[in-house]
């Protein structure tokens, strides 16, 4: 069965990629000049203390040996222990991952909404000033990275017109006890809409900063795709049946225009997730990215490895999902 073969090949390349990423990270950070152990010890520690801690963290073995140990542990679910917090890396990562996921998914939804609506509007008003205006706005959003948008949003809606929160994930004054780390999801399920509103107020600015560059790309791609579709014969036929321009664009052109846009959105989504590293820092949002920066600064090797591995896994998962969705949605591929 060709589908099974294709899937297996995908799996193989994915594993190679993940392994490659793990290897690179592992070896790169071990060339670190700073000694992580030394940072943890109080002054006056003896050579014996240092040696003991080194053994504890396996840093006395050769690098390939360390890698082997680490990989085998990872495959059993043991990601090691964080040097700075002494907690299991797995727990730390799982603790922060939901926050980053919620933020990324929210950003994706905003990007699709903004970019999609803009593309549809530009197609409806093609050849007019409206399209020109949308192009200019899109061009600007495209040239500016999430970092700058984040800062601009902090200024606009944090200081100038303080409508939204620019720090943290939730207001401590709410005193809400979360059972899981999926704050937004949990609040929705438990129907606590006051909490939901507070969470959204904290998430909106960082999510928007992440979303704007992606929205601009969606706008460009989808608009181009739509405009090409509008020349097709089935569109002309639909006009003769009495359909309005708006319904033709959404009903007939859009399903055909979306497919080519999908794969690129998937790749760009991984960039968006990567952007959470600095955006979370900017907005003091307690997610994986924020923790990653501290891990690097503190030379917390096990934690760094764990976080990078999780990011790599996330990226490959997203790519896989996109390819599967494309195959599912394309009627021609389904029957191939």
């Amino acid at each position, binding site marked *: 069965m060709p589908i099974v073969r294709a899937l297996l090949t995908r799996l193989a390349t994915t594993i190679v990629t993940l392994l490659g990423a793990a290897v690179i990270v592992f070896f790169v950070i071990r060339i670190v000049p700073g000694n992580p152990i030394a940072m943890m010890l109080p002054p006056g520690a003896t050579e014996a203390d240092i040696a003991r801690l080194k053994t504890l963290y396996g840093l006395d073995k050769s690098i390939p040996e360390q890698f082997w140990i680490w990989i085998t542990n990872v495959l059993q679910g043991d990601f090691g222990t964080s040097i700075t917090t002494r907690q299991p890396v797995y727990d730390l990562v799982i603790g922060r991952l939901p926050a980053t996921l919620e933020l990324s998914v929210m950003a994706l939804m905003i990007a699709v909404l903004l970019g999609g609506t803009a593309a549809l509007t530009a197609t409806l008003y093609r*050849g007019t000033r409206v399209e020109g205006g949308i192009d200019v706005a899109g061009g600007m959003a495209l040239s500016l990275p999430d970092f700058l948008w984040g800062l601009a949003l902090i200024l606009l809606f944090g200081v100038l017109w303080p409508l939204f929160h620019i720090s943290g994930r939730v207001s401590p004054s709410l005193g809400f006890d979360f059972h899981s780390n999926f704050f937004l999801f949990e609040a929705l399920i438990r129907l606590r809409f006051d909490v939901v509103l507070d969470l959204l107020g904290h998430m909106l600015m960082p999510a928007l900063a992440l979303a704007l560059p992606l929205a601009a790309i969606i706008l460009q791609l989808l608009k181009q795709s739509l405009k090409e579709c509008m020349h*097709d*014969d*089935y569109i*002309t*036929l*639909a*006009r*003769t*049946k*009495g*359909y*309005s321009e708006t*319904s033709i664009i959404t009903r*007939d052109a859009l*399903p*055909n225009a979306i497919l080519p846009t999908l794969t690129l959105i998937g790749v760009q989504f991984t960039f968006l997730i990567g952007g959470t590293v600095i955006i979370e820092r900017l907005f003091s949002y307690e997610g994986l990215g924020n923790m990653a920066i501290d891990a690097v600064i503190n030379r917390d090797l096990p934690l760094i490895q764990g976080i990078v591995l999780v990011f790599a896994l996330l990226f490959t998962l997203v790519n896989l999902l996109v390819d599967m969705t494309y195959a599912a949605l394309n*009627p*021609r591929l389904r*029957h191939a």
Partner: protein
Amino acid sequence: MNYLSIRDLTVRLSNGLPLLRKVSLDVEAGEVRALVGESGAGKSMIGKAVLGILPRAARLTGGAILLDGENLETLSPKERRQRIGAKVALIPQDPLTALNPSRRVGPQITDRLVDILDWKRDEAEARALELLNEVHIQSPDRVMKSYPHELSGGMRQRILIASAFAAEPKLIIADEPTTALDVTVQKQILKLIREMQERHQTALLFVTHDLGVVSKISQSLTVLYAGKVIEETSVRSFFAGPKHPYSRALLAATPKYTDPDGSLMPVPDSVISAVEREVAAFDEQLNG
């Protein structure tokens, strides 16, 4: 009574170039009129003007289109759209591109009925099945659920024909519906169209460049050159002996299998120049 009445229709490109020069044309209820001319003569343009699907660069600058006595240009865009959707239908040229590849075939037949004419879904589907039977499609249930790329070109054209008759339109515009098909399929499709037209008694404006097709399907024809009506007559008198030199040359240029060597004659240059002069003189009148 004329169902379709086109009076002095002039269509120009945005740079002023005329595509249709004061075209006048009538189609009676239930009549089949052929619209004949070489490529680029403007025959498709007439159909597009009626249907309201002129290309963006083209504009109607003069004349009127009356459908069932109603001047279409006096209607609001929405009203015009709905009028056409209810009373007119198009059989397009290329069956391979005229169906939406992302949607199943069934909804593409019933959509006009359900969305524009407010039919109930089950009634519309029953009608679609009925029509698919009329166009001689086996296992219509299966076909309704199929995607266009799963069906052959001939089959798709049948579906498009069925779709055109769905709302029981009073006028159908067929834009060279056999041109894109294999020769063997052309005959079948032509026969089918004639059959459907006779059964439903629909007026048919049949656009073609093939005089052989004209004799098989229509009662009257209009000859077009460079957007100007050259001759308008019944099919019988045309094939007996057309009046205009261009029409005569056109008829002579049609290959006849009874005389293969003697009939591959292009339209002579003298005739072309003559008709071009005619058109130029007409333009002076038009613009002057």
